[in-house]
């Protein structure tokens, strides 16, 4: 909110600190001054007054009170000495009827007659302009001026335009309409409180005045309104018609009903002085809950435990200083005891209701900068270990070491993303955003894959090979969120490179990725990893819910639409599927304009974490040398490497320490329909050096076993 420096100065006899210094003081003790702007001879201070202080500080008077409390300078509120004209009676000009006292706890009105409408004096116009308001005429300007000074929204009607000389505060009727001062038309409904005359609404209560009883050059009789409305009613109305004004903003935060009188008298005084009006006798005041007399007025009283002040702030502030601060902020001190104070809260301070509120007042005016830092004294309890974060960190480190770059994507996907993936599931399996900002945020992501592929599309013009991963949450209807670990490798064709070579049976990128997964799982202490052909199983359509907040029985995305059905595999540990590995389907790559191949892994991180283990057991290194023999087998194309490996291992027995596939070859020099697999076989014993005779015997046994199949041929 913007305040005028000169206006603030007008409440003080002594000179205020210069604008910049004042701004620092306010920022440190009250609220941030976001900007200081020179405006002619004045300065505009844009102060970020917090909603809690709407009741007293959306006004120049309130800020002056704060300045006084901070600096100790004495401020004086402006005069509003009313001289009522005994011959004119307010009630002869207007009658006020409030239909709903809950919606309108107080309604005060004053009548000023014989006014002359003309432009306001320069000082009013300038102050309004500094605060961002457009001067209109003396009456309207004074109403605005009164609001900016006291915080009480005010409204002026032309008394002669009110049908039946009546003001009725009621909720709007169905299909009622109103045209506001700025010529906008609004459809009203029963939730919106209005000010009406005998016939129709003349203002939207607490929000905006209507065109009908507008003040114009010929206006002679002014009916001033100064009311208090229920914050919830104004908030609802303002939201319904989507209109926020200076008035509605103040009302929806809540203001002190006692303020209506101060505001209206200040405005009436100025109209009398500036527009030469006569103030009719009598303040029209609908105030059913008004306390009978001032003495009984129930100010809030708070017992402030002095020990608690010290314990919460962590510093001992002398009692004298505490009392001083409270007094400067206009709190009353009803009782002083060695252990506590009984503090009376001004009715303006709607934000103060508990001792902690008072401690904040004391702390900020005293100055947080004066509180010395002291380390807490606490039991030496070691922090608990967070296993989620431990495994996440380890996983990320492993992938980083395997030269993957970590990305963070948004947790949203668009309708378009969903359609690209042809997720065969019903839309109800997705969680839809009620109020997306743009089309990009229509759904919460059901998978990390769509955004990762978008990363590829974005980066491919700068990078030929991309290796990225993300570890983040996915969301499934109705209320499941769980962590996934998803990564990809791209293989883009270089110029002149032959596509058939890239997607050769060795499937370069696929095996690279498989190696990455083997490495990852091994480092996470998971053994018994194997890869299974993809088969649709009920599990695919019924994702297990590990870290969910409620179970999900919805369908998962159809895997077939995402993957190339010929190059994909389920990643399994023991009997459990933990994820999927495969090439992305050409169709999706085409839709996203991605060139080359993309191999993706998609792992359920909740499962992965559950299977992970920190246990590592050292395997003693054999003191005896290992011997390596190679073997090459010609087998039909459709034979799986695993099958051959199994045969070698079974035939080889315990002395075969390891078998490494080092080449797969098909093509020239190899008979059609066959491929050549070449292995290193490593022989080693724990207790002796193997003789070459021993090794040859096993090697022969292996060859024999392999050749039991007539279609297999060991190349010698």
């Amino acid at each position, binding site marked *: 909110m913007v305040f005028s420096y000169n206006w603030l100065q007008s409440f003080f006899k002594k000179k205020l600190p210069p604008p910049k210094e004042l701004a620092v003081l306010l920022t440190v003790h*009250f*609220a*941030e001054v976001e900007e200081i702007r020179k405006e002619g001879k004045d300065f505009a201070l844009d102060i970020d007054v*917090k*909603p*809690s202080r709407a009741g007293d500080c959306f006004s120049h008077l309130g800020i002056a009170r704060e300045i006084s409390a901070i600096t100790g300078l004495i401020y004086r509120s402006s005069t509003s000495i009313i001289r009522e004209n005994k011959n004119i009676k307010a009630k002869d000009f207007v009658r006020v009827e409030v239909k709903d006292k809950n919606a309108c706890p107080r309604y005060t009105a004053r009548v000023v007659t014989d006014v002359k409408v003309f432009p306001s004096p320069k000082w009013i116009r300038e102050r309004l302009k500094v605060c961002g308001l457009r001067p209109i005429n003396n009456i309207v300007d004074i109403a605005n001026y009164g609001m900016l000074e006291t915080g009480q929204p005010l409204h002026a009607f032309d008394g002669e335009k009110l049908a039946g000389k009546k003001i009725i505060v009621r909720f709007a009727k169905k299909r009622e309409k109103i045209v506001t001062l700025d010529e906008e038309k609004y459809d009203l409904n029963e939730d919106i409180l209005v000010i009406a005359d005998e016939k129709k609404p003349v203002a939207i209560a607490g929000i905006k005045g209507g065109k009908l009883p507008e003040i114009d050059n010929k206006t002679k009789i002014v009916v001033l309104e100064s009311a208090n409305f229920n*914050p919830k009613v104004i*908030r*609802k109305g303002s939201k319904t018609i989507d209109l926020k004004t200076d008035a509605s903003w103040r009302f929806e935060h809540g203001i002190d009903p006692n303020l209506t009188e101060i505001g209206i008298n200040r405005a009436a005084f100025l109209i009398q002085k500036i527009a030469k009006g006569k103030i009719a006798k009598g303040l029209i005041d609908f105030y059913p809950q008004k306390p009978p007399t001032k003495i009984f007025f129930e100010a809030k009283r708070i017992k402030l435990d002095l*020990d608690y002040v010290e*314990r*919460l*702030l*962590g*510093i001992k502030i002398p009692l004298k200083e505490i009392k001083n601060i409270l007094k400067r902020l206009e709190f009353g001190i009803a009782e002083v005891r060695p252990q506590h104070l009984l503090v009376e809260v001004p009715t303006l301070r709607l934000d103060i209701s*508990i001792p*902690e*509120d008072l401690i904040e007042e004391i*702390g*900020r005016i005293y100055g*947080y900068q004066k*509180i*010395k*830092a*002291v*380390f*807490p004294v*606490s*039991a*030496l*309890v*070691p*922090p*608990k270990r*967070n296993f989620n*974060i431990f495994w996440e960190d380890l996983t*990320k480190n492993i*992938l980083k*070491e395997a*030269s*993957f*770059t970590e990305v*963070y994507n948004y*947790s949203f996907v668009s309708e378009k993303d969903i359609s690209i993936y042809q997720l065969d599931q019903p839309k109800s399996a997705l*969680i*839809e955003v*009620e*109020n*997306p*900002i743009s089309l990009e*945020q229509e759904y*919460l992501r059901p998978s990390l894959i769509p955004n990762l592929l*978008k990363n590829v599309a*974005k*980066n491919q013009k*700068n990078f030929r090979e991309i290796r*990225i991963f993300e570890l983040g*949450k996915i*969301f499934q209807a109705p209320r499941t969120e769980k962590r996934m670990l998803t990564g990809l490798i791209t293989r883009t064709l270089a110029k002149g490179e032959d596509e058939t070579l890239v997607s050769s049976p060795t499937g370069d990128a696929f095996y690279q990725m498989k190696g990455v997964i083997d490495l990852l799982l091994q480092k996470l202490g998971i053994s018994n990893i194997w890869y299974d052909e993809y088969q649709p199983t009920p599990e695919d359509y019924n994702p297990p819910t590990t870290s969910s*907040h409620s179970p999900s029985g919805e369908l998962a995305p159809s895997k077939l639409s995402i993957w190339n059905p010929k190059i994909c595999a389920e990643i399994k540990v023991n009997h459990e599927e933990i994820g999927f590995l495969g090439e992305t389907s050409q169709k999706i790559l085409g839709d996203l304009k991605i060139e080359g191949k993309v191999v993706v892994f998609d792992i359920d991180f909740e499962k992965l974490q559950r299977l992970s283990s920190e246990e590592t057991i050292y395997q003693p290194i054999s003191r005896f040398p290992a011997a390596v023999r190679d073997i090459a087998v010609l087998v039909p194309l459709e034979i799986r490497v695993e099958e051959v490996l199994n045969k070698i291992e079974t035939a080889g027995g315990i002395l075969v320490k390891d078998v490494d596939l080092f080449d797969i070859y098909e093509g020239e020099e190899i008979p059609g329909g066959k491929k050549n697999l070449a292995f290193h076989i490593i022989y080693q014993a724990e207790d002796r050096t193997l003789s070459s005779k021993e090794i040859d015997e096993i090697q022969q046994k292996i060859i024999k076993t392999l050749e039991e199949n007539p279609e297999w041929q060991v190349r010698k």
Partner: protein
Amino acid sequence: MKMVKINLKTLKNRVQKEVEKALDLKELDEIFKKYLGKRGEITRILRSLEKLPKAKRVKIGREANELKNFLREKMEQKKSSFVKTTEDKEEWLDITAPGQKLALGHLHPLTQVQRKVEEIFQTMGFSVVEGPDMETEWYNFDALNIPKDHPARDLWDTFYLKNGLLLRTHTSPVQVRYMEKNNPPLRIIVPGNVFRHEATDSSHEFQLYQVEGLMVDKKVSVANFKAIIGEFFRRFFRNDIKFRLRPDYFPFTEPSFDIGISCLVCGGKGCLVCKGTGWVEMAGAGMVHPNVFKNAGLIPNPPAGGWQGWAFGFGLDRLAMMKYKINDIRLFRSGDLRFLNQF
């Protein structure tokens, strides 16, 4: 026989000179043939020994053998000197040529900053805990003393979901979730995603990464908060960093404050980043509001035997921007490898 002896001595001198004069491997090879080849001089001497009487045979044989070994040794030395000279010439390396680039992976800057934050707080006894991204209105607002239909709710622009939940606007709901299940004294930090329903620009983002902190005990104060947060800033940024608390408003803390650090870009003199003030807002904080304790099932206010404590929350994005001097918050979730590969 005296001849032979003289022969051996002069022979040794001669051979030694010849070896030293040799210019390349070929010449050396010829010297070898001349003396030690099948018909070489020394070979001949050795062969002729059998004709001599035993005593002399032994003596001269030994001397001839010594000569033979001496010569071999000299020739080897000479040979290796040749190899060395050729090495010196061929193995010259241009050390200014660039080193081979290794394919490296990169951790996201937010991950790196998060780890640093966790490490600092863990050393001060804070446990790291988490909470869900999808929250109920109760935990995100009501339990934090932000009533329905109250303008304070407008401080948090919120994404609502059709499943009746919302995307948490801050990590503060975890304060209540944690205190419901764990009795004080407690010290936690809570990292996690938060969401704000607002338009983006270089300093605004609709999805952010936040860290919440909470300490509850019988006597924790504002002074204690200043000590802990100051220690954090010093360890995270640098030792001479300045920070300040100023009043702010959050419904779930009372008193509430904002924490600013001296601007690292201009050193506090005033620049575009700090809007000329010399200070940059880093976090919101305050003493936990009694209603928050009540909503978590705890008794507030120690005079009555209850608890008190403080909480804070800051954006990791902002912390990372300050640390690495990143000028656009949207880069974090851009997936742009030209950005990510720098970390």
